[in-house]
């Protein structure tokens, strides 16, 4: 099953990945990382198709994808 992984300390909560994901796998969460950013969280892991669109758009290279 395809899988997406967020390095939350790299995430700056820009949400470009959220917009890019066609399957609505990701969302900006409430929690704050050490740098003070509300980072992204995987809310629908099951529907991830491993298409890498999120990762392509992540300016902070915070996303890894398996397929």
């Amino acid at each position: 099953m395809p899988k997406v992984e967020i390095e939350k300390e790299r995430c700056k909560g820009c949400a470009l990945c959220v917009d890019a994901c066609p399957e609505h796998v990701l969302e900006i969460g409430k929690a704050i990382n050490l740098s003070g950013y509300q980072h992204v969280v995987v809310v629908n892991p099951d529907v991830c198709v491993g298409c890498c669109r999120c990762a392509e758009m992540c300016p902070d290279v915070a996303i890894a994808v398996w397929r």
Partner: protein
Amino acid sequence: MKQVFKRPEAMTDKPFHFCPGCHHGIVHRLVAEALDHFAVREKTVGVASVGCSVFLYDYFAGEVIEAPHGRASAVAAGTKRVLKDHVVFTYQGDGDLAAIGTAEVIHAANRGDNITVIFVNNGIYGMTGGQMAPTTLLGQRSTTSPYGRDCHRDGYPIKMTEMLAALEGPSLVSRVAVNTPGNVKKARKVIRQAFQMQIEGKGFSFVEVLSTCPTNWGMTPQAANDRIAEEMIPYFPLGTLKQKDIVDVL
């Protein structure tokens, strides 16, 4: 299960200092991927310009020379004339390349210096806090065009890609964007082609990347990203304007 997307090896572990949503990060990654692709990190020299990308040496896992503002193309030309078998690239912003560095990039291009220039056009002076760049769009407000860029006073946003394509020297002159996953993929391909041109000794290759500066555009990362398609691409059309023959192995 196989990892289909990971951090490129030509990048260090260091987190970027860029603002949230800034496209500089994507462009950095694409450059690193191209160097991985050709496995040339250890024989590559990057030339950092002065702008938000000045810390290139912190992120690129190869050697880097800092150039004075605007002079990266001249510095790279000097390096490449010595290290002829190395890969030498510059990474320059629009203030750096299209304003103060105009003469240096045009003459490197015209000489056909065998280097690759990555030109990150975000239509603003990011590092210094949002002044008008030569590529700022008409009507766009910036700290030095507080009433909007006025073509009568400030002229039109300059099209470096079109201008360089008018020269004999360059092997590749192209404009890309990284505002959608599809465009990122196209940009990846063009950036690779640019390095391939250099590796094959075909001379100066140039890729303009339309890019966001959410901070100085005064926009959310998402709105800034959308503005690329809505305002930037219509004025700065994407595409390859000039390309010498290349075996397309990409």
